[in-house]
């Protein structure tokens, strides 16, 4: 099944490009470490999922590029074409001239309706090219104007036009110390709207990835390109083909569907966090060796202690004693409760790995069986030159604190009425803001009371 990617705004387009680059280079790599048959099956599956084959032999990404100003799209298209290994369809992009001015209301209420037809036409064309449409993957930031506002509008349109398809929004959360002054307003508006039309939100936080670049990747002068490449690696580790548990011998045919089914059992809980280990500079890879038990142990502790990367994990945090029914308010303070978790393992000897520790009932809320709350996908085919790679996609309290922080800051600003005139002039009124705040306070409350 194929996935159509919609890249929205500067961030969405810059990341989208790195994602397709990473997928392509992984597929072409010779570090598969598995049988030839396995490798070919993997390559075919990846290509079908993300690329369209053309006569020239150069794979064409199944993507629609949208931005309200032309510079980024034109750069993205030309960078892809220059790689020689893949490219975008030269018609699958839509841009305007003026940008959205970091104004969510401008993106949502002005650009959205104005360009709905043109954008949805492009999406329709890409969808029709798929033999079987597996769903939509949108990439956007929530701090600016286009990715956030127009992105929220487009997600709604996708839901209306494709009511039975899966929609996964990849949302980038900005640095806490301002990239954009009104980022908290834009974030609140985006998240609350996406919550109503998307199936799930897969989140990356700039602060977290920045730390990974600084401490694990040892990059001295970190650029957005570096950040985006780490994000692309992490996304690739989730979306490249795998065998699901009961999937038989072939690669999973419905990745988005499987993801939703395993991780989003309840519509109130849609926020997904992502962790991937190990992460290190490419040149260190040949000198490192990892064991599966070590990786699994670290990943589990990262989950429990809500660690952002594999360094500096707090090993003191323990799950509450099993068996005793502890009301949620008494749970150890730093313990991260999960609703559902998905672990994805890629590489050598993957079938021997014991993931029993992830099925510990004390990790989870009581309303799902641990057998249902936890799933694992595996493939012996190594990913992106890492001999062993483990990813965790988690529907848990990972994002509770950052979300609460964003809503808190936005509320403070809202109480002083600062910047509201910029939104009301495009049709977003104070009542609309209040609705959005209410939605998110509800989400925060739900996650807090797990």
């Amino acid at each position, binding site marked *: 099944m194929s996935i159509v990617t919609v890249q929205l705004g*500067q961030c969405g387009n*810059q990341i989208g490009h790195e994602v397709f680059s990473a997928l392509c280079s992984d597929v072409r790599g010779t570090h598969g470490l598995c049988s030839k048959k396995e490798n070919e099956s993997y390559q075919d599956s990846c290509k079908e999922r993300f690329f369209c084959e053309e006569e020239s032999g150069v794979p064409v990404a199944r993507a629609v590029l949208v931005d309200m*100003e*032309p*510079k*980024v799209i034109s*750069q993205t298209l030309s960078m892809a074409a220059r790689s020689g290994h893949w490219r975008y369809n030269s018609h699958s992009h839509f841009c305007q*001239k*003026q*940008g*959205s*001015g*970091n*104004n969510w209301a401008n993106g949502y209420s002005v650009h959205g309706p104005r360009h709905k037809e043109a954008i949805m036409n492009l999406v329709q064309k890409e969808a029709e090219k798929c033999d079987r449409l597996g769903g939509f993957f949108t990439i956007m930031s929530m701090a600016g*104007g286009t990715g956030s506002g127009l992105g929220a509008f487009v997600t709604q349109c996708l839901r209306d036009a494709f009511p039975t398809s899966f929609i996964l929004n990849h949302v980038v959360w900005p*640095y*806490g*110390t*301002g*990239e*954009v*002054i*009104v980022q908290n307003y834009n974030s609140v508006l985006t998240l609350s709207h996406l919550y109503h039309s998307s199936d799930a939100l897969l989140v990356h936080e700039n602060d977290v990835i*920045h730390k990974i*670049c*600084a401490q694990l990747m040892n*990059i*001295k*002068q*970190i*650029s*957005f*390109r570096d*950040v985006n490449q780490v994000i692309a690696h992490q996304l690739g580790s989730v979306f490249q083909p795998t065998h699901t548990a009961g999937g038989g011998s072939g690669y999973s045919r419905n990745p988005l569907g499987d993801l939703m089914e395993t991780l989003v059992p309840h519509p109130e809980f849609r926020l997904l966090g992502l962790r991937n280990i190990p992460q290190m500079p490419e040149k260190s890879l040949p000198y490192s060796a990892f064991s599966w038990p070590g990786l699994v142990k670290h990943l589990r502790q990262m989950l429990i202690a809500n660690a952002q990367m594999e360094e500096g994990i707090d090993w003191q945090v323990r799950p509450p004693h099993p068996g005793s029914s502890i009301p949620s308010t008494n749970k150890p303070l730093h313990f991260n409760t999960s609703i559902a978790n998905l672990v994805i393992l890629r590489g050598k000897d993957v079938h021997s790995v014991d993931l029993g520790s992830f099925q510990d009932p004390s990790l989870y809320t009581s309303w799902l069986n641990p057998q249902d709350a936890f799933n694992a996908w595996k493939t012996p085919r190594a990913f992106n030159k890492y001999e062993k790679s483990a990813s965790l996609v988690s529907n848990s309290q990972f994002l509770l604190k950052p979300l609460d922080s964003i*809503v*808190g*800051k936005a*509320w*403070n*600003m*809202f*109480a*002083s*009425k*600062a*910047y509201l*005139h*910029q939104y009301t002039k495009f049709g977003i009124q104070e009542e609309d803001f209040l609705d959005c*705040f*209410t939605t998110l*306070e*509800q989400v*925060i*409350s739900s996650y807090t*009371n797990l």
Partner: protein
Amino acid sequence: MTQSVVVQVGQCGNQVGCRFWDLALREHAAVNKKGMYDEALSSFFRNVDTRSGDNGPDIYKGKICSLKARALLIDMEEGVVNEILQGPLRDVFDSKQLITDVSGSGNNWAVGHKIYGCQYRENIVEKLRKTAEHCDCLQCFFIIHSMGGGTGSGLGTFVLNLLEEEFPEVYRFVTSVYPSGEDDVITSPYNSVLAMKELNEHADCVLPIENESLFEIVNKIHQMINSGKLGSTVKQNSLVTSSAGSARTLQVKPFDAMNNIVANLLLNLTSSARFEGSLNMDLNEISMNLVPFPRLHYLVSSLTPLYTLADVNVPSRRLDQMFSDAFSRDHQLIQADPKHSLYLACALLVRGNVEVSDLRRNIERLKPSLHFVSWNQEGWKTGLCSIPPVGHSHSLLALANNTCVKPTFIELKDRFMKLYKKKAHLHHYLQIDGMEQSCFSEAISSLSDLIEEYNELDATKGGPRIDASRLKIAV
């Protein structure tokens, strides 16, 4: 890509404007090696096929034929504009972009605003329309003028009004040169306060500039160069005051160095809209992020570095120094000290080989020494543009919406009141058709209200941070 139009009004406006166009050509020439007309150029220049005379059609792609500035030059005296038309920039403007008269405005805002405004209204509207028609997507008008005189101040703010009426969707960024205390124009306080009312009500963003600050910067550079303290040679074309490499190389005029600073300000402001970068910052984003309340749209600007040494290796310490300088009193373009006042919002636009980690590191470093208003503790807007200015490997423009503009306004009000109480020179204004006492009282009232808004914000400075209580959800 969008286009912007520059409207330069009065002697000061036109002299600064002239330097702007000169340095803009220099900047594009440094970047655009192939001589092809590209989107970056189109933001300020048209490409005209002049083979069939001045009225040739616009060429949108392909080789550069003849570049024409998207500008309107307005002056009620002929001297300055004539000089521009006889100088090396004469081919960049055409006669259809000029509006001149002979006798000037006599340093009288009312003459500029009421008399000439009325007289030239249709002419101005027509020429503005023409310029707008040549634009695919007009985003912004830049007005350059001074506040203390008659034409720039009076007719300039008249044009501002016109722009709002005729082109309400297009942004209006105004670069205003404020008079100093020792200004030799006695009526400059009247002119400035009358103009301020218009800026309060009709501008989207105002960048106030004070000559004293420009003068101090020029002096500082002279001293550094002449004292021999600099180890290696300074790259001449990197001086923020320099015209090196531009069309005007000979016959340097007295205000040129100071005007170059303002020209560089405008170039840096628009750089991210014209050139690519990893985090673009367009003009509409500047307005969106830096103006929390409609009337508080006065932005204090600073440019660093002021010059670059010829050695190529830039250790990050020097980069960090650039960020520190941007917040120091002597780099601001008005006499103000933002560090000791209250920030409502701050924007940093970096050009050149600077990455996001450098930006973050410096924001973290400088944040503790700055005071931000309680509802905007992380009020930073950042942009990264890959193309540095001519002669530099990197540069920084800081725009602050900060209560440190208050002293400038208070002094202006004081100087106004000194004259007004005695009714000095008032008759020159009141005898003009359309001028009444109420114009003055409304203007001073508008200024007082603005000062009061800044006062209220200042009162919150240093107070306890009280977070508004959040919505409660029934579980």
